[in-house]
């Protein structure tokens, strides 16, 4: 009952804020949501890995970067649109991720948890620098007409393509939730995530499940890699900032709370764009990301201590 009332209050406040923004500064809401979509879509696969396999994958962004390069050269070779490359890239990246998992991460799972952190850090360096060695630090971009698609409402003109990330983020979040709650494999994964030893006792192959979840997350990363290519130029270090942002978003939502990543992303995306809309606060937009994360985490810990 208390929970329901809280949710209702939050929902009412959000709607009120959205209405105010639409009337006052519609672009803040539009671009805030677009930014949030991209944040969330990249963070969700990392949240899945962190929630089940319990590793902070510092090579998360780098996997997306490798996928984007694969998609770029696939598209170039076959004259294909990156949108058609989404599924093939997802499959290729999932296989690549699974192989990397079996070769490296799996062997470090029994070691102290910090080892996995530094292992993936090493992978991140190796990925970035290998790509740099082969393709140099120059940037690549596929020019596409539809990414400039725009919409006019009154005297307001804005780009609409980036809303695709919002759609993808929602599909990812609820797809992952469906997988974890409604499928046998998903339920087993949740069991492994909560209690690997217990899951092993009831006959679940823990390592197989880890590998599967990792590959699934990497499939999502791969799909994002191809989609990211429509919007952004790619270069060796393009992925690394997303690792930190995703990590922060997951912490803000709370580990294991995949749909919560959506909410956290919207809060951050809209707040950032709100500060950017005004001259005096423009340069401080970046700080809001980190201030909000700290505020949310501290508030949650305070509340946790009280109850």
């Amino acid at each position, binding site marked *: 009952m208390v929970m329901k009332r809280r949710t209702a209050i939050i929902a009412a406040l959000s709607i009120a804020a959205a209405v105010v923004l639409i009337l006052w500064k519609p*672009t803040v809401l539009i*671009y805030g949501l*677009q*930014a949030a979509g991209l944040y969330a879509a990249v963070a969700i696969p990392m949240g899945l890995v962190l929630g089940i396999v319990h590793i902070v994958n510092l090579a998360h962004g780098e996997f997306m970067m490798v996928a984007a390069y694969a998609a770029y050269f696939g598209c170039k070779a076959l004259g294909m649109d990156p949108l058609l490359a989404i599924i093939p890239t997802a499959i290729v990246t999932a296989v690549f991720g699974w192989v990397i998992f079996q070769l490296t991460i799996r062997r470090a799972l029994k070691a102290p948890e910090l080892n996995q952190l530094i292992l993936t850090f090493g992978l991140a360096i190796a990925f970035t*620098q290998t790509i*740099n060695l082969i393709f*140099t*630090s*120059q*940037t*690549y*971009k596929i*020019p*596409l*007409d539809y*990414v*400039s*698609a*725009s919409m006019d409402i009154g005297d307001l*003109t*804005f*780009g*609409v*393509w980036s809303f695709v990330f919002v759609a993808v983020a929602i599909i990812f979040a609820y797809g992952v939730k469906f997988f974890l709650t409604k499928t046998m494999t998903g339920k087993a994964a949740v069991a492994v995530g909560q209690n690997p030893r217990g899951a092993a006792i009831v006959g679940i192959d823990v390592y197989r499940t880890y590998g599967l979840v990792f590959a699934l997350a990497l499939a999502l990363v791969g799909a994002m890699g191809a989609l990211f290519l429509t*919007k*952004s*130029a790619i*270069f060796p*270090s*393009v992925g*690394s*900032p997303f690792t930190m*942002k995703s990590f922060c978003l997951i912490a803000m939502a709370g580990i294991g709370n995949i749909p919560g990543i959506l909410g956290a992303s919207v809060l951050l995306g809209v707040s950032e*764009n709100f500060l*950017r*809309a005004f*001259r005096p606060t*423009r*340069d401080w*937009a*970046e700080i809001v990301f980190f201030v909000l994360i700290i505020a949310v985490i501290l508030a949650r810990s305070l509340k946790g201590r009280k109850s």
Partner: protein
Amino acid sequence: MKRVMFALAVLALFVGSAYAQGTIKIGGIWTLADITGKQGSAAAQLAVEEINAAGGVLGKKLELIVVDDEGKADKAAAAVEKLATVDKVDVFVGGMASGAELGKIPAFKKYNKVVMSTGAAGGTVEKGLGPSPDSDFYFHLHPWDYNQGASYAEGWDAIQKKYPNIQIKKIFLAYEEGAFGKSSWDATKILFGSDNRYIVDGASFKSALLGGGDYTAVLEAAKAFKPDLFIWAGYDADALPLLEQSKAMKFSPGIYLGAPPGWPIDFGASKLSPNVMLYGMWSTAMNNNNPASAKFFKNYVAKYKEEPATYFAPLAYSAVYILAEGIKNAGTTETTALIKALEATKYVSPLGETITFKPSNIIKHQGITRQKILQWQNGEQQVIWPFEAATAAPVYPFPAWK
């Protein structure tokens, strides 16, 4: 007696040949993981081989020893120490990122050998070097940030005079929030905003290269300002996404100009590229009217089977030639004599201008002070200004989006 003579002759031959075999060592420091450093070091190596094929300098061969600075101050300092004490180089060449260059300065000052610098535009580097005579060993080829700003102001004045249909009143600068963009903004505010001929505004954005890539807010601000000249100072990763976003927002200023250090691969093939203007130092179009540029380009492509992607390649190439000529004229690599010889440099460079050294705000030896204003036309960068290096006339205005 005969035997003694013979021995002496052998000795003379031996000493002579040993002397001739001695090399003049050039220590090169760049960030090799970056395209500018990778190609800059390659272009410098090309220059060394060309000079050696033509007989070397003072009867000796040149030798280029390259060490990576990884773009970090501490690694850059170690690179200077290694080249100075282990390889015992005679002179230094290289440099790109200001942060790494600042790390080298204490070590450079300690050894007081001539440095021919190919990068580091940041004014803090000049402050770190300090005034003459302590910084006289440092020859800075690349323009400082304020030199660049001044040359743009000069260029736009000249262009408006020559092409009366181009009229600029309002200028908007979208600058990336790092050192590069911020210094561009400072220079623009001062040079365009001082007398009330121009109205200047600007806003920062986070470059995709540094983890940003969201241009909506800065373009909203630019669109509301309605500039005649829109400039963005960022990196190559921002080039196409910015244009695509501008098109989506139907933002089409009279002049759309980018000032990144390099452009993305195949930018010229994009449908959005025609008539985009840019600041730069060198383009392949200059091969048509500049023999030095044509020679550099031909030899570079023949050796490396790729085209130089940024002007840092011809700049590093020029640096080696200037050093070689200075050493030849000085007859030595000793610092005082070499500085004196280099002060008389008049090098006809592939960058379309004759390089000489003049004092800048703080240091005594500043090489190039002008950047060029160019325009993407039919997939190639054409030089618009300075007019003596021009390869095409400007297309104006930037076409409105369809």
